[in-house]
């Protein structure tokens, strides 16, 4: 897996010298800064107004403001992974290097996960700010970050798969946006249906997922879902690369 590490290192290196990285990171932080400010403001005026117990848990799981930008940022981060290589032709030297398809995919996936972590790292400062002006439930905060990591594990895997399938970066971005949008919409079904359909939608729901983690509840059903989707998407991506050799 040494070659996967080499692939990952190059991917991250290229990402962080591209203007795209800084446009994404800056707009992401601006967006989250505004969301955090709005939530804090709201909680300062109305004590315990919603289901969530603090601005932090609302930030991580209570508001749709959390998910809407993700549906856009994830595709933008993952579109280059393989579709970019195909577009520039560098896929040919990559696929003719003496390394396995699995090493390429694992390296790309590792890079995507690292980007995801970089995206979230600065938000730790919100928890610190809260701790200066009140009490922070650190257990719930750690569970929230764990939940975010797991959510990223499958979001990034879906983005990677779409990038493996698509001929161009734009198409990869659109496909990932649609895939995540469908998952998000199915999750909303939790509030629409009854019975088994409701159970199913709640299981898929990103919202339910983060609401549970943001309260400090690490629900293994959600973990099973995240890991299954991630493993499936990564496995399929390896298959797509292998199949491409056959025309």
């Amino acid at each position, binding site marked *: 897996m040494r*070659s996967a590490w080499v692939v990952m290192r*190059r991917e991250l290196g290229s990402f962080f010298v591209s203007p795209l990285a800084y446009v994404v990171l800056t707009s992401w932080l601006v967006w989250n800064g505004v969301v955090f400010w709005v939530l804090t403001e709201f909680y300062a005026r109305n004590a315990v107004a919603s289901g969530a117990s603090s601005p932090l848990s609302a930030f991580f799981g209570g508001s749709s403001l959390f998910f809407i930008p993700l549906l856009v940022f994830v595709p933008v981060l993952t579109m280059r992974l393989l579709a970019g290589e195909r577009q520039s032709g560098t896929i040919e030297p990559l696929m*003719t290097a003496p390394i396995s398809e699995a090493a390429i995919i694992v390296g790309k996936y590792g890079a995507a996960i690292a980007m995801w972590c970089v995206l979230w790292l600065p938000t730790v400062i919100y928890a610190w700010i809260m701790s200066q002006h009140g009490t922070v439930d650190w257990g719930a905060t750690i569970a929230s970050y764990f939940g975010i990591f797991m959510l990223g594990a499958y979001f990034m895997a879906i983005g990677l798969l779409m990038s493996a399938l698509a001929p161009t970066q734009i198409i990869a971005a659109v496909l990932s946006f649609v895939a995540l949008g469908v998952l998000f919409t199915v999750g909303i079904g939790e509030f629409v249906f009854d019975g088994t359909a409701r159970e199913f939608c709640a299981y898929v729901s990103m919202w339910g997922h983060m609401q549970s983690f943001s309260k400090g509840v690490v629900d293994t059903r959600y973990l099973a879902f995240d890991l299954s989707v991630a493993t499936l998407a990564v496995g399929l991506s390896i298959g797509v690369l292998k199949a491409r050799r056959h025309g």
Partner: protein
Amino acid sequence: MNDVSFRVERGEIAGFLGPNGAGKTTTLRMLTGYLAPTSGEVHVDGIDAVRSSIEARARLGYMPEGVPLYREMRVFEYLRHRAALKAVDRIAEAVDRSLELAGVTDARRRIIGQLSKGYRQRVGLAESLLADPPILILDEPTSGLDPNQVRQFRQLVRSFAGTKTVLLSTHILSEVEAVCDRVIIIREGQKVADLAPGDSDTSLEDVFADLTASRPSGDAS
């Protein structure tokens, strides 16, 4: 592609000729494992390149058509990255040696995207030499080079005679006459000739025209 069988001996420099669209690039892509053949066999240095693709690829230096490179990287960064992918032992030495061989030492710190086509071409050549492979496969290696660079390139390839096996695709006939011990000509995905440039009495140009010129359809001959 259909019935393109040939064998290049160790230390031989072979030219791979054919009109545009004859299937040169496709054939080379099958040799390098980028594409899998639907039928038939590919052996690289005695290794079955379809079953043991990675082992076969480890013995190849390949310069794809158009020389795709990571444009945002510096030349030495790119070569280091590629050397690491190829699991080269002494990366720094290998990078210096291939920069020197390909004549791009002066551009080592430059960003690839800002290089001229000739330089990028030579970075691609340096890349193919990194692991000191016994076999080199070069797809139109001199396109974009100026006459002096072409001459340097030919001298470099000639210097491999006897030590490395080289297969180079081109449609420049003078290049084949200058550097190749052998010529393989294909047309419409089929091999039509396998000869040494000095063999026949007629010039290579005539042989090529004879074998590959498209005949008008309906010609009864």
